[in-house]
């Protein structure tokens, strides 16, 4: 179902959302002491908090659904006994995540596969995902790092949202999927979309598409990767990689983690905490007497891409890179994944 929402009615829409939900969206907060101001997903109290025209965020909504540094349980040793208490931080309200771009919607669909539909359910993710309403927003402008079009994740979103907004100047085109979205669209400030609205939306997305990188045959890339595992190219690609793990941290689909102990000094009390853990770190797969498990940084660089483009897709039927470009923007060595893909295409 397609509707439009006049921008003057947006505050009413927001207020209605806020009645039953905690609303999270892109804000300018977090850049206060940094010269490098990026949008940050955080609670929205007033319409002015919302940085709705944001270009991109450094951290994707992954950090809300699967937080870094999340406590799992606490333990306390007392006179020969041990007490355990679950310490997961649960959402006490339903949540609306507002203004999520198509690449990040696609990334949430990837995390759904990993954490809900595989042979194991991630408890925090499962809980939060069940409380979540997703209001997506197609981008107004692409960044120099974007390539969602090459990965089939944008600039339009095919699914993975309850509502999807597109800015048409004085109004938002609003597309809806599923029961949660239907319910929101029932409000009187949503008007039927006209043929002209449809056309305006198509034009906006075509304009966006024109600014994105020229086409790439991703199926050919994946096919070539199958017999290039031992290729020298991987050495070349990762030559300048300093194994900092920044790409892992900013990637909306990277999901590897470690669970560690935070204890008091005598270790009688503490908690187990889940932290994101970059597969680019050498110790990630290190073992006694067999230091060779991905000891070379090129092996780790390669593993990350094989996991996203081959292994996870084999298991889950979709690409696990969504072309958000964050790993390009934040790589201190300026490694450009798009260039790597183009080399593998030929």
């Amino acid at each position: 179902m397609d509707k439009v929402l006049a921008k003057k009615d947006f505050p009413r829409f927001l207020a209605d959302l806020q009645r039953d939900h905690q609303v999270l969206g892109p804000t300018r907060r977090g850049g206060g002491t940094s010269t490098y101001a990026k949008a940050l997903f955080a609670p929205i109290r007033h319409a002015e908090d919302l940085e709705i025209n944001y270009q991109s965020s450094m951290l994707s909504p992954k950090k809300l659904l699967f937080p870094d540094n999340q406590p799992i349980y606490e333990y306390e040793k007392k006179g020969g006994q041990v007490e355990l208490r679950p310490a997961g931080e649960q959402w006490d309200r339903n949540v609306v995540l507002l203004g999520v771009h198509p690449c990040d919607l696609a990334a949430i669909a990837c995390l759904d596969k990993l954490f809900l539909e595989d042979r194991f359910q991630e408890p925090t993710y499962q809980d939060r995902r069940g409380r979540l309403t997703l209001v997506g927003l197609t981008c107004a402008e692409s960044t120099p790092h974007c390539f969602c079009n090459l990965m089939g994740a944008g600039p339009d979103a095919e699914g993975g949202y309850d509502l999807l907004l597109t800015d048409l100047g004085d109004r938002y085109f609003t597309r809806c999927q599923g029961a949660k979205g239907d319910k929101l669209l029932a409000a009187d400030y949503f008007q039927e979309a006209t043929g002209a609205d449809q056309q305006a939306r198509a034009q906006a997305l075509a304009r966006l598409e024109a600014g994105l990188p020229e086409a790439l045959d991703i199926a050919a890339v994946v096919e070539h990767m199958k017999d290039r595992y031992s290729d020298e190219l991987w050495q070349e690609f990762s030559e300048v990689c300093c194994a900092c793990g920044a790409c892992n941290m900013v990637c909306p689909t990277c999901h590897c983690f470690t669970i560690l102990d935070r204890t008091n000094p005598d270790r009688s009390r503490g908690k187990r905490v889940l932290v994101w853990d970059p597969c680019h770190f050498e110790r990630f797969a290190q073992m006694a007497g067999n230091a060779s498990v991905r000891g070379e940084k090129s092996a780790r660089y390669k593993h990350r891409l094989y996991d996203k483009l081959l292994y996870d897709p084999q298991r889950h039927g979709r690409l696990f890179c969504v072309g958000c470009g964050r790993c390009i923007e934040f790589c201190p060595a300026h490694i450009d994944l798009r260039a790597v893909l183009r080399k593998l295409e030929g």
Partner: protein
Amino acid sequence: MDNLYIPDLATLEQIQEETPSIRTLTLALDRPRTFNCQPGQFIEFTVFGQGEFPVSVAGVSDAQRGRFQVTIQRAGKVTKEVFQLQPGAKLGVRGPFGNGFPLEKMQGQDVWLISGGVGLAALWYLLAQLQEQRGRWGQLKLLYGARSPQDIIYQDALRALGRDQAGPQVLLTVDSAANGWSGRVGFVSQLLPDSGLDPGKSVAVVCGPGPMMKATTAALRKLGLAEERILLSMERRMQCGMGACGHCMVGSKRVCLDGPVFPLAEISNLLEEKF
């Protein structure tokens, strides 16, 4: 909601010192639940305040009560704390996890168990099951290599096995020995050429340190044993044990979930360092 990262509490009932750096612990779950464990599976073992690590289940003495054994070698930060533990200590257990050995594939076959060091622990429960259902298999053989005579684990049980007519033939070797050792000296892979293995009707099950696995698979290939008939119990760094954290991946396989037991044929092309 069940949180699978939170362990069950267990009590340490008994400690058996195997060698100066290896002990076998008998644990019982505090809230008895059926401990449904296949040979070859492992648990995640927590020493509270220190950390957690994966360890093979070496035996199940009472599945209904959740009483079982693990054999642990001192390797680092958390395993060294195991050597401070006294009976009565409270520990954490998650699992069992992993696929276990494909017993139906071994049906009717000769079974060669080949292990090095503490790797024997991962095959110990399998051996118990093989013996319990003795009629299902052909010849059984246990080949075991330790660094020195002092490093041999399960010494009493191995001696008893050696005396048991119906039991498997046991072949021991040590890497090096001082005076007083009358057995074989050399790597366990060197026992293979004269072990009488018939590649047409045998399955080899291998567990040990990386270099041992590599040498052993090479020796087995040389004897003409097909890669589908070589079962490896793999070891990788692990965190979650359930297929979520990514640490244990070998190529596309998750050792904790798709393994730890793999036919060599399934994994040989995925290993970073080829066997």
